[in-house]
């Protein structure tokens, strides 16, 4: 049973962390070579898919922690892991439900110039917030990986 939980935990956390790393280190720099309109289309499609991948992997990580029979050492590791998981869930929810749809919202064709400008400002604000939150997400995911590697945690090799 421990073997199965450790496998699910490691695979799920790896997919989440690796995905976050690819978004930051691969996709973001590649955007510079593509026209903004196409970047918008790809971002929108990726965001929709990634939302489900991230939610699924975070769900698996939580399930693995719940059924994990041991407590990681030292004592502060378990509450900190819960805090990391909660932060990641909140970040995914905020970006997936709030900011991502806002950053791709289209203004109505019938709207006047001021309304278009306001919509554009809202989109830019959402994009800037997404940038900040994506980096925070990556930092928290790395911290979660460190906690997962502590003795007693279900991460790679840490449970002897």
């Amino acid at each position, binding site marked *: 049973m*421990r*073997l199965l939980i*450790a*496998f699910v935990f*490691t*695979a799920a*956390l*790896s*997919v*989440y*962390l*690796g*995905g*976050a*790393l*690819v*978004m930051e*280190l*691969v*996709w973001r*720099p*590649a955007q510079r*070579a*593509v*026209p903004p309109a*196409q970047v918008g*289309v*790809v*971002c929108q*499609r*990726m965001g929709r*898919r*990634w939302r489900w*991948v991230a939610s699924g992997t975070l769900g698996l990580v939580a399930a693995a922690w719940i059924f994990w029979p041991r407590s990681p050492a030292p004592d502060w590791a378990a509450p900190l892991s819960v805090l990391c998981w909660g932060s990641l869930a909140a970040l995914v929810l905020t970006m997936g439900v709030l900011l991502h749809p806002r950053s791709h919202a289209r203004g109505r064709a019938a709207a006047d110039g001021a309304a278009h400008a306001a919509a554009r400002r809202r989109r830019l604000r959402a994009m800037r917030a997404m940038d900040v939150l994506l980096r925070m997400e990556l930092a928290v995911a*790395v911290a979660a*990986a*460190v906690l*997962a*590697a*502590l*003795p007693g945690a279900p*991460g*790679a*090799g*840490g*449970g*002897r």
Partner: protein
Amino acid sequence: MTATWVQVLGAFLHLLAVAVYLGGSVAMEFVLGPAQRFVPPAQAQVIGQRTADRFLVLVWGALALLPASGALLFFSLSDQHTLSGTKFFTTRYGQTLLAMIVLWAVLVANGAIITFVLRPRLAQRASAQQGAAGVSRRLETMQSAATWVSRITRADLVIALFVVLLGASLAYGGGLL
């Protein structure tokens, strides 16, 4: 105390390498790849090329980090006695570790095929001087290379998942094989 922190460092780096390889491949193949279909082919090719070039650097880094962090973890756990003499080949622990090393070598070989054989084929451009038949041949070659990259990447994903299972079995089950 120091040994514990070396163990944590080894485990973290090992997890990071797996994350870059496994999670990165999932994101590239199942998130970024499908999204490219919604932009014009020329732009999709630029995106594919840029992202693949960068991702390959990460992949090779991860493939290099895997054995290094694995060795760090192995020695920090003081597991050398489990593999002394012929135990590498006769115990479940040794056989599982051996299987992981062989599968890692397969991933390296597949990575080399993608980097040095298939990617250059994808990067070549069709020239008008080659004529219609030449352009058509060029496109066929590129299509075939793209299909093979996708097939190998998916096979690598399955292999990487199995390696994770073997790794978990080393830590919590004394080996799987």
